[in-house]
């Protein structure tokens, strides 16, 4: 039985884009998580997701792992990118698309101007 820390690390290292969220992309259980799902779906970049509500260890573990107090949290190529506000700000500024492209990840849509 691995710890939450090990599970998180394995997930972050095995997927290019991972969203730690409340609920699932199909059924987000928090408005902030839903916003990030919307943005990722809009960009069309494939991503893995982890529902932190499934276990108390994961819910607290991700906050400790990132040293970040809130969920959702987006990881790109093993790096913590930010929470909902940062992802939204970057998306609106066109920086998220650029970030994905520079990381060699597919992006479906052009940035809205």
């Amino acid at each position, binding site marked *: 039985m691995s710890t939450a820390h090990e599970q998180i690390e394995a997930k972050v290292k095995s997927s290019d884009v991972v969203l730690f969220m409340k609920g699932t992309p199909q059924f987000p259980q928090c408005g902030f998580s839903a916003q990030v799902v919307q943005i990722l779906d809009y960009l069309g970049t494939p991503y893995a997701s982890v529902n932190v509500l499934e276990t108390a260890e994961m819910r607290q573990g991700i906050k400790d792992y990132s040293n*970040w107090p*809130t*969920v959702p949290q987006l990881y790109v190529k093993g790096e913590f990118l930010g929470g909902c*506000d*940062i992802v939204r*700000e970057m998306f609106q500024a066109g920086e998220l698309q650029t970030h994905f492209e520079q990381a060699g990840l597919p992006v479906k849509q052009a940035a809205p101007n």
Partner: protein
Amino acid sequence: MAMEANEIERLIKAALPDASVEIRDLAGDGDHYAATVVSPSFKGKTRVQQHKIVYDALQGQMGGVLHALALQTSAE
């Protein structure tokens, strides 16, 4: 449990005395806020670092008492 807007502002200003802080109560329920924090000390810092400074100023309330604080930060 909710937190007063002026308490949020007080904590942020205590940690960042040079910051201009604007808090908006989004839903009128004392529980969903948006904060804009502008501080010259953010210069040269990434967004993650800027948000982290504000979260740290809130002394652990973020993610706990304060579930919903939409945060926007900028250096100018």
